[in-house]
């Protein structure tokens, strides 16, 4: 397993390298953001340990850039910034884990192993079907460049459907996952909200992303309709 450590604290970086080496990882170290991004793009690593306050380019930008390039390498942010919004921002930009300094080396190694188990399958921070995109972090929905205002329920419905593009999802499954369990048992409510959603994401744009599959449920077209 090859791991890239992007960290400007030279002694910390070499200590981490020594430790991970001893556990059988191949470790490369980059001391600034630009080098880090370059290596992460080209090096074919299985995981990246990324500091946030880096010379040249901040860890946020490195992470954002990697995800924008559809590079799904697992990223563990290692930072002395412990503000809750700092952590939320890092994770919403596509990082997989966040560890604040000072950290336990044992926990760092364990989290890295957990990340490696999960692998590098695509897990975009911003979900998309064609030109229809949904950002769960900022709770925004866009069709191409146009922002779309959705209510909480409409957002939850689209959120559930956009994670399974092109697949048919039954009304009862939607009712179960989008509404409070047991609070509503009438499947009509799903139809009503699907209608609302269609009026916002499809009708104004002359598209047909949210499709009704008779007798089965709904399908969100993978290409955005």
């Amino acid at each position, binding site marked *: 397993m090859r791991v890239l450590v992007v960290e400007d*604290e*030279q002694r910390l970086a070499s200590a*981490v390298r*020594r*430790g991970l080496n001893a556990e059988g990882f191949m470790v490369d170290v980059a001391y600034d953001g630009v080098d880090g991004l370059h290596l992460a793009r080209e090096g074919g690593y299985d995981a990246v340990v990324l500091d946030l306050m880096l010379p040249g380019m901040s860890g946020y930008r490195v992470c954002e850039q990697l995800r924008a390039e559809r590079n799904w390498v697992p990223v563990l942010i290692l930072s002395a910034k*412990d503000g809750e919004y700092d952590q939320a921002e890092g994770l919403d930009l596509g990082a997989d884990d966040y560890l604040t*300094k000072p950290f336990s*080396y044992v926990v760092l190694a364990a989290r890295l192993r957990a990340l490696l188990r999960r692998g590098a399958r695509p897990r975009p921070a911003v979900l998309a079907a064609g030109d229809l995109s949904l950002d769960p972090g900022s709770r925004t929905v866009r069709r191409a460049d146009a922002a779309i205002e959705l209510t909480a329920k409409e957002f939850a419905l689209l959120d559930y459907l956009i994670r399974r593009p092109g697949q048919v999802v039954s009304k009862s499954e939607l009712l179960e996952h989008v509404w409070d369990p047991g609070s509503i048992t009438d499947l009509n409510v799903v139809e009503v909200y699907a209608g609302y959603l269609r009026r916002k994401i499809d009708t104004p744009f002359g598209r047909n992303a949210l499709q009704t599959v008779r007798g089965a449920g709904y399908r969100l077209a993978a290409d955005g309709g």
Partner: protein
Amino acid sequence: MVDQRTGTGDARQRDAVAQRDPGARQDASAPRDAGARQDASAPRDADAPRSDGDAFRRDEGGWRDEGAWRYEGARRWGRWWRGPAWWWRRRSLRARLTIITSAGLALALGAAAVLLLGALRLSLVRSLDDSARQGALGVAALADSGQLPDPVPVGAGTITIQVLDAQGRITDASSGADRLVPLLPPNVAIAIAQTGQSRTLSGPPLGMPSLLQVVAVRASDGRIVIAAVSYAQAEDSITTLARVLLIGTPLLFALLALVIWLITGYTLRPIAELRKGAAEVTQTGVPRDLPVPPARDEVRSLAVTLNDMLSRLAAAQQRQRDLVSDTAHELRSPIASIRTQLEVALDHPDGLDWLETARDVHADTLRLARLAEDLLLLARLDEQGLTRPGKPTDLCALCGSVAERYAAARVPVLADAPGSYLVLGDPDALSRVLVNLLDNAVRHAASQVTVSVRRDGGSVLLTVRDDGPGIPARDIERAFGRFSRLDSARSRTGDAGGAGLGLAIVRAAAKAHGGTAHLRDAGPGLLAEVRLPLAAAT
């Protein structure tokens, strides 16, 4: 006066006790339950050592012992006794404005009603006089021409005429008029005939139903014509108007008072909204904008001023938060480094170079110690300026001795400090200023660093100049910020860079010494200038 004030306070406290625990008050009114009464009086006993209210308190003790009705009575008395000023101060602004305006309005309306009645009466009397005089003049003309019929002809019977001869006897009269007794004694009649005045007489003694308005007019042969007009109609008009005013004025007053109340409320609404906004700020602790009313009035300027203050507070809060988070970040980094090095070393001791590990950990520890020192120094400079009373320090000598320490630096440091200039200050803080500036300069210089001290008016100018790449003009002020790192390419791979506190300390120390610190572009390189006031002794 002192006693009175204490009394007020006590009465209020008593109210507070009663409100807080109505049960205790009920108990207190039952003399058998001594314990509860004790409870009710506890808050007063708590501040017993205060001597100014002792006499009053002893008195109250007497009331308490005598029973509940005295206690209640004292309560009511106390409330009344606080006086109208106390009551007034506790009204809302809206209520006070409404009361003041309504009081003025009531006075104005009352005065208007009285004036109206008076004017009506005056004009009615005048018209009665006129009609009586017209009748009398007509009769006098008839009498003068000797064509006076008997009875004397009059209009619709509202006027009564008597004609007296020179001896005061009634010679002619209108129908229904007294033929024996004149309405006015002849001499009075002659007098008012001469002056043209009128008299008001009571009707009933003269056989008339109401008040009479009487005038007299002379005719030929010394005769006098007396004419009287009944007051009854005028009286009716005045009574009707008085009734209308009696009902109408209070109604009008009530309506206007209501309008005033509503208008005052409307006018004060922006203030109420300001208050609501401020209360939200207090509750949430998050300074945010208060609502600014659209009208360009005093309330608007108040809102704008308050918003300005709040945004300054918010900015200060933000700066403080940033500083704390930067400080935490800078402290955590070396600690993380030390911890990880030690943990890895302990986890994987095989083939480890313990000496190297010790050196690395030591370097991080030094960095941490330096950071802690810098932070403490900055905090001290911020808090109290100079830590010690200043003592005269020769800046030139200090400059020479500090420059000597840089003999082995990567570029030569040239000291140009002839003479001797004393400044009043802390030698340690001053030498920190020099060291920080020289560290910076040596780090960035291409070939050499020059440090100079010279006199400039009433101050000493310390300059440190390097011939390195300099700083873009837009970043120069930012360089003095805490934890600011301008050189984005600089990494902490070596120990060359500090935590970004060096220039912040320079500025804080200069300020604490009553001086200033600035950076400026020096053609190639950077020029740092620290200006300190010259000690008076030189």
